[in-house]
């Protein structure tokens, strides 16, 4: 372990960490927006459910290396758009499934009560179904975020990569183990921090789900 290298390159490590976070957050934000829209679309037209989930399932199974290789001729290397198109396509299956599962998990008697009380369809969705689905939706966000934090490292192959740059360009290509270790540890740490953060977020959003014990 070359501590002096780490000290000398603190700025570089910080920059790569920041790049990693940014690539992840953008991918999750866009992926969530698309998934949310698709979920609403499927709720309105249930026959669209099978084909949409089918397509997002196919996207999910494409090996990430193959996807980058396919996109580069169109979008070029060193282009964040290339990275994001690939990353976003991996989030959709996870997020969409969880949003749908969360909404489907709202019990029939809660829905019947909401209708009987005089909620409109939109009021019911926004004020009852989505809030009740939050734990399942956040569950999807956690899986997607941890997945994307890992996948961002692969974008080093097209000249980006966040902490992946340290692993591939510095560590692997120059046989410098310290850089590989720093990059890997950083990525793992980011995944853990993001996951804990989302758990906190869910807990703050759903005080009602915390107090299950008393009767």
């Amino acid at each position, binding site marked *: 372990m070359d501590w002096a290298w780490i000290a000398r390159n603190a700025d570089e490590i910080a920059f790569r960490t920041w790049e990693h976070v940014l690539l992840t957050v953008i991918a999750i934000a866009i992926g969530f927006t698309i998934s949310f829209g698709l979920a609403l679309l499927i709720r309105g037209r249930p026959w669209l459910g099978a084909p949409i989930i089918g397509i997002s399932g196919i996207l999910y199974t494409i090996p990430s290396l193959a996807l980058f290789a396919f996109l580069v001729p169109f979008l070029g290397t060193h282009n964040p758009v290339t990275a994001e198109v690939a990353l976003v396509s991996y989030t959709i299956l996870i997020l969409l499934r969880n949003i749908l599962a969360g909404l489907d998990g709202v*019990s029939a*008697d*809660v*829905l*019947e*009560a*909401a*209708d*009987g*009380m*005089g*909620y*409109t369809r939109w*009021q019911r969705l926004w004020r*009852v179904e989505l*809030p*009740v689905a*939050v734990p399942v939706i956040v569950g999807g966000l956690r899986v997607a975020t941890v997945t994307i934090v890992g996948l961002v490292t692969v974008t080093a192959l097209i000249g980006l990569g966040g902490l992946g740059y340290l692993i591939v360009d510095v560590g692997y290509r120059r046989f410098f183990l310290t850089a590989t270790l720093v990059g890997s540890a950083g990525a793992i740490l980011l995944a853990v921090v993001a996951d804990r953060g989302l758990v906190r977020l869910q807990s703050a959003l*759903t*005080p*009602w*789900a915390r*107090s*299950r014990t*008393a*009767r």
Partner: protein
Amino acid sequence: MQDASGAVVAFEHVTKRYRGADAAAVNDLTLEIPAGEICVLVGPSGCGKTTSMKMVNRLIEPTSGRITIDGRDVMELGAVELRRRIGYVIQQVGLFPHLTVGANTAVVPSLLGWDPARIRARTDELLELVGLSPHDYRERYPSELSGGERQRVGVARALAADPPVMLMDEPFGAVDPIRRERLQNEFLRLQERVRKTIIFVTHDVDEAIKMGDRIAILQRGGILAQYDTPAAILANPASEFVERFVGADRGLKRLSLARVRDLETIEPVTVRAGEDRAEIRRRLDRSEELEYALLVDDERRPLGWIDQHDLAGSGPILAEAATPGAPTVQPETTLRDALSALLGSSVQLGVVVDDHERVIGLVSVDAIGDRLREPVQGADGEFHPVGTEVG
């Protein structure tokens, strides 16, 4: 709260035919429910009772015929607006798990856009009304409540915007029999104050007899078999179907028409722990009817029976001497439920208690038996079962 705030609900030749079904679910139903009364829709499964109820707030829309509330066709109003003006209580309650008890209760006022101060005041009033202290319950979540407490919040929520009409679909079906009895009594007491027009669905004839000012008995295919007061239905079933549905024990069921409060209660000899045994003996001797003293706590809540055997000698009586398990009944308990409670206990006396479990008096099996033997001939010469007001 104002009295008789209910509205007249009328079904006029209402038929519901589901697509693809041969038979009608509800067939040419015509009945009128007077303002402020409880009408129980009862019948076997598939009789269309729930469908009939849900047509009132348009969760289901009739194929033909019309339903009016105070003369106004429900189809004239928007479904959403209509539903905000009709209370709705279902068996599984359907409280919103993500909202506190207070927010659950405030749902309809919020939809109606009341200002927060008014909503807050109304919520507290309602929780008080259903017997849940606002201070203790307002901020709790449904997952922290017992089944009975949830059901009460469900009733409070339905009453929130003071709707003239309430629909209740097997509201006490999900709670155990003892708690159900309590909730029924509580609800009847509440109804005496709020006087809503209530359409109450159940499959349980005993519940129908107890809760209904009127009962509509439906049979398969959504055909109205009989619509009358419980007393009239028990006395004169309109058809063989009704007779079978009401059951062979019609005589016994007549006991459901009368309540504990209709009986003369016996004044108990109540004692507290620490009282002198000789003194208690003297008090028991003075009372001719009683062989047992009732041990109560400082709030006058019953703890158990004390018999002559426990009172031998002198010195203070200990709380441990009491035999626990005295069955308690409430003034609203039907004589039928009271009888079955008493028959199961060793001392055949029931302790009548109020809302706060405090002793009011005693009822004996004999008093209920006397009631059963009373003549059933009414003053107008017609057959009237026990416990109905004649004239």
